[in-house]
């Protein structure tokens, strides 16, 4: 037995599979073979829980087959061919389902952790602002009264000097508060110049694993670079939430999510980067569209979604001084369009004409 099997697929799982395969193949009783298949499904889920990679599930089967063959060398293959495959398929299907659920949970955990972090930072900022407000009032009284008191003391007296010190100390405290506020703001909101195309591509790799297999996720940027001022985690959260939402809108049929990035400059306005996330799912009626960014509004079943995803996106886009719109019709998919202020990178200012244009005319950028 090789090392990797030892470390990843525990021996007892490997033994159990070999046993149930024998059961499934040799069972005289249909109930017993049914039980073996149920156990195979359970085993598939356990393999995911033990983080056994998919390749090793095949090895497990292979190893069990060899054991079966050596234990029963006279079994004719033609007689057992169908029986051998059933437990593998059963284990494989349960494995895939459990794996997808695991990946979904992880993607959700990443999104939630980010959300939690941004909430915490916002709370720190709010707390800092509240403290600053009260401190400034207190300092205002200290500073003001010390100035007033100086009217009542003889000039060049020791008292005057003491008041002078009180005032100096007050100014130091004022500057300290200003620094604390700046720091809290920077912690909560630290935008940098970031390149969207690469960041989105990276984010979509993460999203892809949490989408159902029959949902295709395509990234079709019309530019090679698009610069905006944002925190990378803000963009990741926007993209993840929109894609998870799009994936949920594609309910039964195979579907497709298209993510696009292009440059856009409305006549007479500042240049924008336009991010689109489009699905060919259920679509929404007007009523749902109007409420889609409301906090806690959801069309998902209870427990399937918080209803916060799109309102978080809406909030983030607002923070980035961008705009978001939705266009949709029942039965013909949904498209979210986000416009963010574009940074003109040095030496890259003339990228208004994208190098590649293969979109239908209706989707092209408005003439500038």
């Amino acid at each position, binding site marked *: 037995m090789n090392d990797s099997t030892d470390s990843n697929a525990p021996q007892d799982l490997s033994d159990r599979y070999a046993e149930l395969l024998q059961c499934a193949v040799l069972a005289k009783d249909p109930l017993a073979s049914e039980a073996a298949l149920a156990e195979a499904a359970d085993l598939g889920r356990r393999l995911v829980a033990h983080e056994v990679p998919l390749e090793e599930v095949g090895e497990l089967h292979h190893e069990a087959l060899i054991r079966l063959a050596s234990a029963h060398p006279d079994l004719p293959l033609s007689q057992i061919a169908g029986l051998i495959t059933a437990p593998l398929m059963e284990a494989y299907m349960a494995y895939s389902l459990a794996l997808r659920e695991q990946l979904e949970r992880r993607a959700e955990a990443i999104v939630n952790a980010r959300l939690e972090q941004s909430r915490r930072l916002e709370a720190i900022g709010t707390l800092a*602002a509240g403290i600053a*407000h009260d401190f400034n009032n207190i300092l205002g*009284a200290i500073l003001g009264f010390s100035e007033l008191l100086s009217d009542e003391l003889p000039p060049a007296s020791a008292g005057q000097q003491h008041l002078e010190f009180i005032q100096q100390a007050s100014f130091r405290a004022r500057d300290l508060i200003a620094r604390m506020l700046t720091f809290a703001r920077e912690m909560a909101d630290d935008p940098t110049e970031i390149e969207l195309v690469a960041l989105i591509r990276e984010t979509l790799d993460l999203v892809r694993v949490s989408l159902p297999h029959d949902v295709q996720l395509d990234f079709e940027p019309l530019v090679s670079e698009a610069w905006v001022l944002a925190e990378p985690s803000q963009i990741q959260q926007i993209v993840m939430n929109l894609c998870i939402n799009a994936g949920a809108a594609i309910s039964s049929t195979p579907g497709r999510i298209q993510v696009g990035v292009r440059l856009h400059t409305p006549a007479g306005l500042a240049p924008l980067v336009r991010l689109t996330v489009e699905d060919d799912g259920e679509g929404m009626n007007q009523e749902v569209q109007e409420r889609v960014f409301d906090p806690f509004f959801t069309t998902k079943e209870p427990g399937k979604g918080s209803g916060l995803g799109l309102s978080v996106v809406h909030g983030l886009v607002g923070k980035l001084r961008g705009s978001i719109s939705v266009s949709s019709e029942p039965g013909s998919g949904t498209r979210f369009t986000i416009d963010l202020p574009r940074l003109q990178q040095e030496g890259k200012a003339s990228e208004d004409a994208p190098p590649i244009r293969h979109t239908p005319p209706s989707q092209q950028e408005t003439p500038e």
Partner: protein
Amino acid sequence: MSKILIVDDDEIFRTMMAEMVRREGYEIEAVSNGQEALEYIQRERPLLIITDILMPEMDGIEFIMKLNQDGNNIPIIAVSGGRRSISLEFNLESAALMGVQTTLPKPFTREALRAAIDQALEHSPPSSGLR
């Protein structure tokens, strides 16, 4: 002589500000929120209003909004210890957006207050005739 109306919920700060303004040679009236300020203005027209922003009952922004609705031409100085922040609280920027021309962050020196009063009174529209 009409008075300078001081609106601030922080009693110690209000007392300090009132004394400072009085020593600049003005008569003052001090109240602790926007509602009381409106009631005073209905009885008497102040020369100038110095108002805090964050106050219970009626905050400075609502107070300024109500004054504007009535076609205010009394000069206003907005004072606040709040700063531009990521929180959604009103601050001096909000007051500036409401048309207040003179803003003064807390804490301030006597000199800064003097300058703000002079500036606000200079910008003041003619006090007689128009509404």
